[in-house]
């Protein structure tokens, strides 16, 4: 080929420059790929990502004060809690207007319960005032009438709390999730006997680590055996791992409930063999022991499967070579085989830990009070105590923890390499 020919612009048959034709072909291919992905992406964004975003928003959202008492919040701008005096007549007039509307819409009790999380007693204050506000006379001085209805209206602290929580965005729920509190004097830790969440987070982490270690301890020998046995045998034994994996979570949890209870199969067996006397049967359920045993069993396949897939790729000739060079069984395993299986340990351990840290059903059923996780508290706030903001803040913290772990998992294994069954 001559020099001039290589300088020439290459063209396709219909005369378009080749570079351009290739670029447009690539664009078409990208577009086609995106069109195939789009339905699912939109579906997941709407049904899954939006709810998660909504939850994150709820954990800081605090519009209820301004929505229920718009005029009061506005009038309070001018009031300074440092003055040491409750606000003047103008604020009370605004409060009267707001309360009349709120009582009509029955929203004042909800605001009362919201503010009660920050300062006890406000719930009853709003309830009481709500009953009296209809009888008040708007022509008379309102401050005196409110104070007559409940003298808490004369306390600076009540108003300081109201002013403090009037912004639409609040860190209060996250502080509460960390056992702290936003007070007019700044951020303070809650009294020691009311601190539960830091301890609960700590326990969730601790139990998840214990469960991960138990899974590793039990899973490693099994994966090792399965990888070493000939395929025909290991496939049959694999069923023993896959059957629990495919069995419903509730089935396995109920099985453990049956096995572990005081009148259950294991205790009956121990009493029958004479290891334990009938009077002091072991307490293995509704405590941490129950949670650890049941969750280790439930998560064990998630440890064995990644371990097995890594061990399967370790060539037996390395161990043979080590032995032929004079290593004994232990050295050959520890210095040659084990280091090659570490990626499997990493993958399995992170996977089990991610699953364990957010578990809800099993701790709820076999954990009693000492074996519950942070998830159980989230569920409690959403369905029983109805403190949705706090539930959302706890959820957001748990989500952050899981996301960090997931990035680690992605670095070790890569999401594309996740294998199932």
């Amino acid at each position: 080929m001559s020099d001039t020919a290589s300088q020439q612009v290459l063209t396709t048959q219909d005369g378009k420059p080749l570079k351009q034709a290739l670029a447009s072909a690539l664009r078409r291919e990208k577009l086609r790929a995106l069109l195939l992905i789009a339905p699912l992406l939109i579906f997941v964004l709407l049904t899954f990502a939006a709810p998660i975003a909504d939850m994150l928003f709820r954990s800081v959202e605090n519009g209820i004060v301004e929505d229920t008492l718009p005029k009061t919040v506005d009038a309070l701008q001018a009031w300074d809690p440092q003055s040491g005096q409750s606000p003047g007549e103008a604020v009370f007039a605004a409060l009267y207007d707001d309360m009349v509307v709120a009582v009509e819409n029955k929203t004042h009790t909800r605001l009362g319960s919201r503010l009660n999380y920050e300062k006890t007693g406000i719930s009853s204050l709003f309830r009481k005032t709500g009953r009296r506000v209809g009888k008040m006379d708007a022509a008379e001085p309102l401050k005196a009438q409110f104070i007559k209805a409940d003298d808490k209206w004369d306390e600076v602290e009540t108003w300081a709390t109201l002013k403090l929580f009037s912004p639409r965005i609040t860190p209060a729920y996250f502080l509460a999730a960390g056992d702290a509190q936003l007070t007019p004097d700044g951020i303070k830790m809650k009294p020691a006997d009311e601190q539960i969440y830091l301890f609960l987070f700590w326990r969730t982490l601790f139990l998840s680590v214990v469960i991960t270690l138990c899974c590793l301890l039990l899973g490693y020998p099994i994966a090792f055996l399965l990888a070493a046995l000939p395929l025909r045998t290991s496939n049959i034994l694999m069923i023993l791992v896959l059957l629990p994996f495919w069995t419903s979570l509730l089935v396995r949890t109920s099985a453990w409930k049956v096995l572990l209870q005081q009148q259950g199969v294991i205790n009956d067996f121990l009493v029958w063999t004479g290891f334990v006397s009938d009077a002091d049967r072991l307490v293995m359920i509704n405590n941490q022991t129950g949670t650890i045993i049941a969750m280790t069993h439930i998560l064990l396949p998630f440890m064995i499967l990644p371990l097995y897939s890594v061990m399967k790729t370790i060539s037996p000739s390395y161990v043979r070579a080590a032995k032929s060079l004079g290593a004994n069984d232990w050295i050959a395993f520890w210095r040659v085989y084990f280091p090659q299986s570490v990626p499997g340990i990493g993958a399995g351990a992170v996977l089990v830990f991610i699953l364990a840290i957010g578990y809800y059903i099993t701790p709820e059923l076999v954990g009693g009070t000492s074996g519950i996780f942070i998830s159980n508290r989230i569920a409690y706030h959403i369905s029983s105590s109805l403190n949705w903001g706090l539930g959302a803040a706890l959820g957001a913290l748990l989500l952050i923890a899981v996301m960090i772990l997931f990035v680690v998992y992605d670095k070790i294994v890569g999401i594309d390499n996740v294998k199932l069954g």
Partner: protein
Amino acid sequence: MSSLPPYASPLQRTWHYTFRFICGLIFFFLIFPILVILPLSFNAQDFFTFTPEMLALKPEGFSFKHYEDFFTNPDWQQALTNSVLIAPTATILATTFGTLAAIGLSQQHVPYRSAIMAILISPMIVPLIISAAGMYFFYSRVGLQGTYWGVVLAHAALGTPFVIITVTATLVGFDRSLVRAAASMGANPVTTFFKVQMPLIVPGVVSGALFAFITSFDEVVVVLFLGSAGQKTLPWQMFTGLREQISPTILAVASLMVAISIVLLSVLEMLRRRSERLRGLTPG
């Protein structure tokens, strides 16, 4: 470790058998809890443990009464109906969207591939309690909370990552020159898809669908939050039953569900062997 050489020392021999014994115990730990509920579900008494009559294998110790209860009790029947109505719909949604997306994701040039993948896989990673809480908040805003479609959509979203993973896995081994070969012989893209690509990825699609089905069929956290009494599913009924210790009917249900898992497991195993055969690997 697989077999003991004839020159093994007594110590090696001891360790070999000790290791086998330990593994046996762990396998026992894995499988025993599932097997133990099968005989217990035939208990003639309302106990969660073996009665002396059962241990003596006397026929009067056994009965089908818990199964009878399951098939006649309206609560359980309602739960069964709901489960059977919810899971297949969620599976169809998850499989259709998931398969299309997996084919799209396995193209050679996909912009923002890893970001898209992270979003699509996230329902599998985010703890269920958080998904349930978020869905509860959001679906009540849009009026889906406590409705059949609310639960179906939530379950479909939870099932899609499994479909993507299994279908992508079958597509990784897919030889692109097959598509070009079909095209060079005059097949249009639609024919190529159904005649060449589809038969090869069917095992992935079916096992993805099975995963999506079992995800929905076993799911309890989301349905507890999103559903109302009208959407009570089998796992929900079991959950409340276990919390309140109502009756050993739970064991009968559990045994039936174990049977379902065995069927699913066998189907999956058959599919795995088929796809390995198709790709020219020896079935193992």
